[in-house]
């Protein structure tokens, strides 16, 4: 029996986290895993800190990742890479989109955005993989594919054949955006390989 894998997605409401976690979930299912995913809707989505929790294995019971047991975190914003530190363990990997989105207290000049925030992770010995998803998405010609870059970056660390992903993206993304999303996925893979 395979142990259950735990992937934590974190970021800011509106960044496309739900779609990225969906594409990853479909790919795990297509690769023959059981999976469960938990997300929160409603008030939390209005520009606040959001997460999606994805678990996969032979049979998954709980939809929630236990603190200290997230194997991979995919963070869409730098500070949101650090906010969920208690969910990580010393062998966790954190894939970070090196983007800063200012929370209200920073935007209004009340506090400063923390300097060198990712040091809080590396200081604990956690492996951090930085990806400039926005720039890579711009490179492929569509800035809205930043979340697909992150899916690609994550895919390197999952037991799924890239061909499965390509099939899933082909099936889930509208035809006219398919090519650019596949390019974004490939850029993400390169960035974390």
């Amino acid at each position, binding site marked *: 029996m395979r142990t259950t894998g735990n992937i934590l997605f974190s970021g*800011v*409401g509106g960044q496309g986290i739900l779609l990225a976690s*969906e594409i990853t*979930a*479909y790919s795990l*299912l*297509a690769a023959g895993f*059981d*999976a*469960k*995913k*938990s*997300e*929160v*809707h*409603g*008030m*939390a*989505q*209005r*520009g*606040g*800190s959001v997460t999606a929790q994805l678990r996969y294995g032979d049979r*998954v*019971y*709980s*939809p*929630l990742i*236990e*603190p*200290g047991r997230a194997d991979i975190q995919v963070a869409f914003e730098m*500070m*949101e890479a*650090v*906010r969920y*530190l*208690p969910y*990580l*363990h010393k062998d966790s990997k954190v894939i970070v989109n090196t983007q800063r989105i*200012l*929370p*209200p*207290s*920073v*935007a*209004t*000049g009340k*506090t400063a*955005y*923390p300097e060198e*925030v990712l040091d*809080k992770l590396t200081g*604990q010995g956690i492996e951090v993989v930085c990806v400039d998803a926005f720039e890579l998405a711009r490179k492929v010609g569509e800035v809205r594919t930043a979340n697909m870059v992150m899916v690609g970056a994550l895919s390197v660390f999952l037991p799924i054949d890239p061909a499965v992903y390509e099939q899933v993206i082909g099936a*889930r993304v509208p035809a006219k955006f398919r090519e650019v999303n596949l390019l974004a996925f490939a850029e993400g893979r390169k960035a974390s390989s």
Partner: protein
Amino acid sequence: MVKISDESMWLSGNEAIALGAFEAGVRVASGYPGTPSTEILENLCRYDGVYTEWAPNEKVGLEVAIGASFAGVRALATMKHVGLNVAADPLFTASYTGGRGGLVVVTADDPEMHSSQNEQDNRNYAFAAKVPMLEPSDPAEAKEFLKLAFALSEELDTPVLFRITTRVSHVKGVVKKGKMEASSAAAGIEKVPGKFVMLPALARKRRVAVEQRMLKCRDMAEILPCNRVEKGSSNRGFITSGVSYLYVKEAFPDAAVLKLGMCWPLPEAKIRAFAASVEELYIVEELDPFLELHIKAMGIACHGKDLIPNQGELNTAIIRSAIDPSQTPDLFPAVDLPPRPPNMCPGCPHRGIFFNLAKMKVFISGDIGCYTLGFLPPLSALDSTVCMGASVPIAHGMAKALGEGAHDKIVAVIGDSTFMHSGITGLINTVYNNSASTLIILDNRITAMTGQQQNPASGCNIKGDPAFAIDIEALCRAVGVRHVFVVNPHKVPETRKVLEEAIALTEPSVVISRAPCVLLPEMKVRKTVTFYTQQDNCVGCMSCIRLGCPAISWTAFAEGEAEARGYKKSQKGISRIDEILCNACGQCASLCKFHAITQEGE
């Protein structure tokens, strides 16, 4: 909804319930949006052969479903946990009438209050209303249990409560397609006054029937497959239900478990036999000690809330360390970071109203919706929030308590959908009993917080087809409000003048703040010309910053930077608009006195 294979799909609990309702042959479904229940009807409305609607509130929604059941078809009502408080009145008597077609009421509870004002445990309603309750653990069970709920409803002639929680509603999992079923009743008019007319003499007879039904249901609970024993080590045995079952299976995979798919009424003989088969018995449930109290009342010794928290959501780690404190994990400490609370969107019309109210030295009686976020800094313009519709009577009650001098001190703020839900009766009271409190109706043309659902004032039905739209202004005049104002909240200074005029009146007044939600599809596709900062003109007054708009940020100057960049020495910094985030509402431009905020091409 996503197909994995011909038989199975990847569905959220709410999508699974919609599929279950379709497979159960539901013909009529009604409800009011509320997290985490909303997506049930949003998905069910896409199936053929089932009539769905958004009702103005949960009481109406349940009454519609009761009517459909009386007419001999299967009917579903959906709501969030607090919605069942609103619908409790019909529920308690529908328990006496029963129906003809199956009647199921979904209550979506929100432990942890992810998007709610309380975390009440609605299993208590099953006990109080004397109706059966089913409680699935995941999306696959949610679909199967919903079909079982309809079968039980018809067999026992009772409404069935169906309790889900956030971690069932908004969890996705693999769900298998099933067979189509149909009601055992036939659609038509059948007059059964002994059952349907609950005047006292008849109700007393039905009261007896209710008791007999619940005895019969208790016997069924003993043999229903949804109440099952999973064999395991006899050292520790767990009785659990709902999502808590999943956490128990992960925390104690080898233990014996009695999983209760039906959490009311309880299978007493099965519980006794299970308790006798294990050395120590643990009851694991989220929120109230519901199972525990009833099991203890059977005279069975057990652990429960002496170990397991009665607040918030549970998870595997909480259960494991509550029962085995030696298993408490050593975790990395949390890092102190600036918080990132939810915020109103860039271009949200509510912001203009709260920006003004924050400066007006009034008590702001708030309500339930996106605008509850007006509480957060920098606006900090909300002084109370209790429940749907409460803003209006609370303002009236405060005005009455404080007397004449308070006519210009109290305002109520409510959204268009919440006003339809339960604000109108409050306004009738304000007029009838005459207080000078001012009601501000934030009419953004949609039920926004739950994700853009139509309502009786929005002009469309649940499927997005055209429907009659209530004229809110005419409605307010019809109930007797003589002073009704309509403002564009994006014009901040002009709105301030109207608010001041309305609040100063010594008679009831209403200000309708009318501007569409920026998340409406038609707002998203519009070609906007975003605002930007002419930084040469910015004097660093922070007027725009105080709006708290996510698209506007402050850059502080370093020592000597102001002079070096040609600003006054005393200037502390400049503001900047992120043109990608800007939704072109113009509130900031209406506040800027230095022509520093302008639209491109002007």
